[in-house]
């Protein structure tokens, strides 16, 4: 059952990587946001 393919994207691993990459991107963005406006 857990081998079921995701309806979007080629594998679950890629989707999970995307989630973590978006988080990392947001943290970097927020860091520069803090520096720029403070």
């Amino acid at each position, binding site marked *: *059952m857990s081998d079921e393919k995701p309806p979007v994207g080629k594998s679950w691993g890629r989707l*999970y990587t995307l989630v973590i990459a978006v*988080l990392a991107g947001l943290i970097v963005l*927020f*860091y520069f*946001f*803090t520096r*720029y*406006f403070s």
Partner: protein
Amino acid sequence: MTWIDWIVLCVTLVSIILYGVWKSRGMRTIESFLLADRQLPWYHVGLSVMATQASAITFISAPGQGYTDGMRFIQFYFGLPLAMVVLCITFIPKFKLLNVFTAYEYLEKRFDNKTRSLTAFLFLLQRGLSTGITIYAPAIILSTILNIDINYTTLLMGGLVIIYTVYGGAKAVSYTQMLQMGIIFSGLIFAAWMVVHLLPPEVQFSDALHIAGKMGKMNVIDTKFDLNNKYNLWSGIIGGFFLQLSYFGTDQSQVGRYLTGRSVAQSRLGLIMNGLVKIPMQFLILMIGVLVFTFYQYHQAPVFFNKTEVSKIETSAYKAEWQELERTSGTLFKAREQQVNTLIQALHAGNKGGEDSMRKGLQQTEKQNQEVRKAAVALLLKNNPRADVNDTNYIFLSFVTKYLPVGLVGLLIAIIFLASMGSTASGLNSLASATVIDFYRRLIKPQASASTYLRASRWSTVGWGLFCIVVAFYAHKLGNLIEAVNILGSLFYGTILGIFLVAFYMKKVGGTAVFIAALVAEAFIIFAWLTNLMAFLWLNVIGCLVVMVLAQLIQWGSGAFGSAQAPGEDKKASPVIASEASKYFEN
């Protein structure tokens, strides 16, 4: 509120409730009532999960938090996407394969009855109290708008949610939450635009952020590691990860949402959606609070935002002292307005020296303003030692009702109601699930008919609804509501998560070891909280680690003395899950 706002509010609420009720008609079984027949698509799951977490507190407290404390609260959510990934990999497949109703059912086969009962009991205690707070939050709004005693509005709000949840069950919860989130997103974007629109024409959006930033509100990221700092990058990623993993992985109000997915893939996609959207959504809500802060640099803010407390002191012996504080606040406002205007000129001219000088001046004036607010609180307490001196929850509401245009006020109030209905309904539905599945069906009536369990679920929903109303009566003592809910969660989630992680990853540890470890860990967490040993987010980490380490040690110790019990030692597992469970453990 004008009559147009009332129409917007009533039409929005009634149409969404009717839609949910219509979609949930013809309910006959407990599976329909508690899990919507496990047939919902991923976007239902995702929106339902988000709506369950985003209660009215999110829309009342979080902008207030942004106003008073800046953006740093966003770091609290950094662990959430990571928790979603772990849930997708580990929790969802296990729960779905066993076809469980509640997360705690899993623990019975893996450990024993007592561990399942203890975990379900901790959940009921924590969720019952938290849901009480989520009922109280919108009751504040009704109380302020209609000028009615808070106890009556609490009864009204709680009563409406009980009726709606008892009738609709999980399907109604999910269908209404889907519409609710659509309205919530559009309303929030519109509100953010309105705040910027209400600023003076010469102040652009980026200027507003610069003003807030110079006054310490754009503190989105704090990279310094400090165990006693509630919100920094590390407490957010590590502590937040454990809190979110506990909340989404072991709190039935969330587990019940993704168990409604029609397959493992659909449930996973719903959680991935939450992992991608939650932080930007929360950022927007906090940003609204920060923009309201900038707005009040151009419009004089009240010394204290809770009108009820202010009206009490204005008719007391301290009236003259209060008026003096208001005069001081007015003088500070004028000085600050001038400084802000000079800052904007310096920003537009690219004058770094002027910018820096105004930053220092503004911070100094803001410090004086905070002193006035402290003096105001002291005076309120002097007049009435039982006064509600935390006005964070009133900041955004006060702004909405005073400055936003006709129609939008009704829509934003509707959003707060919808958010409350969504999360309270999920809470009551999950409390009923744990009560009926983990206690009633197992201990009181193991072989009853479907209609008996359905009836028991509905009565259980009513019972918990009444309990939550009683809790709501006392919720005003808790200060900032969004923090109160998270602190309450942190007192129990670490222990519960520890039990589940032992179940998933420490195959040689048995039920008795984990049961004792959980009791010790919970006692330690309560002690750590009472003695302020650390910031609350770390309680999740510590609670979880204490359970895992202690359970392993007890298992080793009992093995050394020849009394070790094998995992799943109590074979009196519920017959309902026994066959499914045996399939899983054989795999």
